[in-house]
Structures are given as C-alpha cells and as structure tokens.
C-alpha cells in the first residue's frame, strides 16, 4: 500500500476543513489570551512514514532551536498525539504580550510554553472532536525539551508506528516574532476509525 492510500482525496479535504474550523477556535482562544491577531494558515494534511517525521519536523520551524510539548489524547477507539513546537526566539514576544514582567528564565519560558500549549492543544483537539462527535480525553502534557535541536526531538516520535496521518498547523502572530507549529499525529489504526466518522460526514 502506498503511503498516501490510508486516506483518499475527499477524506483529505474533509480533514483539512475540520482542522480549519478547530484551529480557528484555538486561534480565537490564543488571540484573547495575548490580545493579538493570530494569522491562520491553510493546514497541511499528509500521510507520513515514520522515517519522514524528521523531515516534517525540520520543516516545522525556521529556527533549529526549539522548545516542545506533547500531549496524548484518546477517545472512541482513536488515539493521537499532539506536539507543539515553539521557535525559541518567540518567547521574548510571548512574555511581553502576556505581560510577564520578571526575568525570562528557563522556568518562566516553561510556564509560557505550558500555558500556550494548554490553550492551543486543548482547543484544537476538542474542536476536531466536537465536529466528529468524539469526546477526547487528554493525557498529561510532557515537555519534550527546551532549547533543543530539532533532531533530538525526533527520537521521541519513533515509537512503534510505520505510517501516520499528520496534521500540521503553522501559527504566527501578527506584527510580532512569534512562531509555533502544532502537529497532530494519528496512527494507521486510529485513521481507520477516524475515516469511518469522516465518511459519515461526507455522505
């Protein structure tokens, strides 16, 4: 089976539209938190092989020094993993938008990272779930690393899957230097269950 065959074009289009709506809800939450305008991209839906994860992540941020959080979620026989990666250059602007007044220590950056992750990941996962009538339960967020090289993060994702559906959303904030990438990964088994829900919507 070719890499692309786990979803067809209609399904890809539908995943993209569901993501579009969910990421808009997440952006709205972030915009209110930061009092800024979040620029929404067209989300990228692709099927990746385990070995491509490195490339997907490398393309995710323009800077190699990143900080990242991941959080698993599960519901209705579907499990997925959300990863939020921040370009490290973003933290200064993020701190000022959040009116964070103290020195920007590693601990302070961690707090900013976790706060943003909880808003973006939570809203996005629930936005997708709502449209498919799935209640996703989220696991605890895990910090994958701060100020680390993208290549070091990749080791994390390499656990026991061949192919996955990847949903990539590249958020930027207008007028300031804040850039982050939200990556949702669903393994083949979960995609089969998701496709059933998608086909129902497409019908």
């Amino acid at each position, binding site marked *: 089976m070719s890499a692309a065959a786990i979803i067809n074009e*209609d399904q890809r*289009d*539908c995943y*993209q*539209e569901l993501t*579009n*709506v*969910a*990421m*808009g*809800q997440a*952006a*709205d939450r972030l*915009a209110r938190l930061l009092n800024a*305008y*979040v620029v*929404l*991209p*067209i989300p990228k839906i692709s099927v990746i092989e385990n070995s491509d994860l490195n490339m997907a992540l490398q393309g995710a941020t323009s800077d190699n020094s990143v900080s990242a959080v991941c959080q698993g979620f599960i519901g209705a026989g579907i499990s997925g993993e959300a990863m939020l990666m921040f370009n490290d250059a973003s933290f200064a602007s993020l701190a000022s938008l959040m009116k964070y007044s103290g020195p920007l220590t590693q601990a302070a950056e961690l707090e900013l990272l976790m706060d943003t992750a909880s808003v973006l990941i939570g809203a996005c996962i629930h936005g997708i779930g709502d*449209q498919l009538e799935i209640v996703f339960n989220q696991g605890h967020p895990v910090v994958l690393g701060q100020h680390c090289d993208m290549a070091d993060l990749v080791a994390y994702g390499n656990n026991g899957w061949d192919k996955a559906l990847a949903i990539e959303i590249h958020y930027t904030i207008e007028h300031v230097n804040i850039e982050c990438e939200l990556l949702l990964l669903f393994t083949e088994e979960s995609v089969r269950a998701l496709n059933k829900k998608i086909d129902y*919507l*497409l019908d």
Partner: protein
Amino acid sequence: MSLNVLICDDSSFARKQMARALPEEWQVEVHFAGDGVEGVDAIREGKGDVVFLDLTMPNMDGYGVLETIRRDDLPAMVIVVSGDIQPDAQERVKKLGAMAFIKKPIDADKARSVLTEYGIMTGA
C-alpha cells in the same frame, strides 16, 4: 429571473455543507468557486448576487475577494463564512464591506437567520 448565489470555498466538503444549509424553499441558482480568483471571475459573470465567502483560501483569500469587489464596485452582497472566529477577523471583513459573518461549521439555522435578518431571502 432567479437570484444567483455563489459559494466560494477551497474545500469541496465545506461547499457541500454550505449548499445543504441553504433554505430549501429559497428559489436560487447556486454556483461554486474553489478559490478567490475563481470567485471574482464568477462574480464578474453575474453568478454572485449573494456570495458565501470563506477567508482562508489559496491563490486569493477572502480578504482579497472583498478588496476586489470594493475596488471594482462589483455587485455582490457578501456573507463571510469562516472558521477564523477572532473578533479582529470579523471586524476586518465588515470594514471591507462584508454584510454579515457566519461562524463555521455552518448549519441551516444560522444560514436562515442571517438571510432573513438582512432581508436577502425573498420570494419564499
């Protein structure tokens, strides 16, 4: 002569969802466009008396369509239908001349209430 309604969205799923949300008894001709460039072309051809417009699209986005309509004074009543629900986005499209804003996902009740509120639906 019936009213021409244009649904402009890059997602075929979203176009279908929008078409399904239109009131059944509304006597209109429905047309579709897959991005902003196609949308503007369709409006110039007279297919967009009423336009349901998405914002995030390739080639030309919804903001570009609104700017073109205003610049060239094209005859179209635009209702933006978008997943970008930030208050800023709604304000921007209103400033650019959009008549109304509907949050995605669209449903029949939202479509009907906007069409009625702005007096667009006639001949029912």
